[in-house]
């Protein structure tokens, strides 16, 4: 089967910003690029190719129409895929990147991408990474215990009148 490039329309980037755009300084970290496929017959996407320009992590989300009756929903195909191992270095900054569709059951959709499953897991895990669910459970309990103490407070004061120990006996004896 020969490979054919699918015509697509790439919209301009939109910066995602939190807070007041006028007053916040510095450029935001997240930019969104919309890609649409205007009036194209159903197709099976095999590969996405692009040239990186100083983007560290990539997330791809796809909106799929499963049928005319159900509303279209967004699906995340790729989450925080690492393009640059160190965002502050040059490695990967201007590379050509290909993302392939994995051997998952193919789905065709009228006007949208079939979602390309990446070669690696959504979060590419190195060997021997600790179990995230258990780590998360412990950390969340620790967070909850800390929050509980932060929230509880005693309004009763112990009745100290000195500041910084100025009533310390040794000091008093000299005055």
């Amino acid at each position, binding site marked *: 089967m020969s490979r054919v490039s699918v015509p697509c329309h790439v919209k301009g980037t939109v910066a995602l910003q939190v807070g007041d755009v006028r007053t916040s300084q510095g450029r935001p970290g997240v930019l969104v690029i919309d890609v649409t496929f205007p009036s194209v017959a159903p197709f099976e996407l095999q590969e996405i190719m692009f040239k990186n320009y100083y983007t560290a992590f990539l997330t791809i989300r796809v909106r799929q129409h499963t049928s005319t009756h159900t509303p279209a929903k967004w699906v995340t195909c790729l989450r925080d895929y690492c393009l640059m191992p160190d965002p502050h270095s040059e490695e990967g900054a201007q590379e050509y990147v290909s993302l392939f569709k994995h051997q998952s059951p193919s789905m065709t959709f009228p006007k949208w991408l079939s979602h390309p499953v990446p070669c690696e897991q959504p979060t590419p895990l190195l060997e021997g990474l600790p179990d995230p669910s258990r780590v998360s459970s412990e950390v969340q309990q620790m967070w909850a215990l*800390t929050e509980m103490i932060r929230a509880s407070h005693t309004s009763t004061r112990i009745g100290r009148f000195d500041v910084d120990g100025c009533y310390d006996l040794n000091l008093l004896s000299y005055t």
Partner: protein
Amino acid sequence: MAALPVPLPSAKMAAVEKRRQAVAQATSFTDSGRPGVPRTAATAESEEDFLRQVGVTEMLRAALLKVLEARPEEPIAFLAHYFENMGLRSPANGGAGEPPGQLLLQQQRLGRALWHLRLAHHSQRTAFNNNVGVAYECLSASGRKKKPGLDGRTYSELLKRICRDGEAPEEVVAPLLRKIQCRDHEAVPLAVFRAGMLTCFVLLEFVARAGALYRLLEDPGLAMADRRLGQAVLDTLEGALQASDDTAPARYLEAGSRLGPDSLALAMDRALVARRPSAPMTREEFLEKAAALFIAKVKPVG
């Protein structure tokens, strides 16, 4: 022998029992140590009177209430300790002819207070607060030379003892003690005492969780954790604890998403990818850093 629930001694129940005895004389049963023979109403009355006079009725009632409040996993052992403790308290206890010295009394008081404080987990707040009250009274009791009230020095000793028994390393809890300790001569009010006890026990649980977390991060071969992993997890926790001025629900949602498995996996993965390996992080260092995050949120006494 039928397994009967231990009846709470009360006059009402005794009246019901008398009526029951009059009707059903065929079956003999044992309960509360009474002999299993049918008996007349008059004997039952004198027995009940006897129990009440020696104070057993009241004592058993108090004991059972304590069991209900504490819901221990091993009720019999719990009751055994309870009565043992009570034996120490009673003046009729066969002791030496000479009254014990101040130091011994102090140690006994501390021990008893500790026992009370451990009856209920801090999450069982009502029971815990009740026990704190009892412990406070126990420590505030006036001895021969001691004035009534809880002094700062006893309070500090108690805090140290709780942490030691809870197997929390000294360096880990020292910053907390500095924050919530009182000066030796100061009188510690109940509210301060209660807050201090709660904070102490919660910290112990926090340290236990941190220990479990360290075990998860440990490299089985090294028996130590990769510094990058440990720091990444601690940094994520610190980030989630940063107080924003959002209302509580928003803050919890944000923390929940930051501390979810995906987010943590990402943080750990990024740390391993981004940084070169360096010296591993020991358990002590990890616990100290984790505890510091907790202690930072504790309000100092003042």
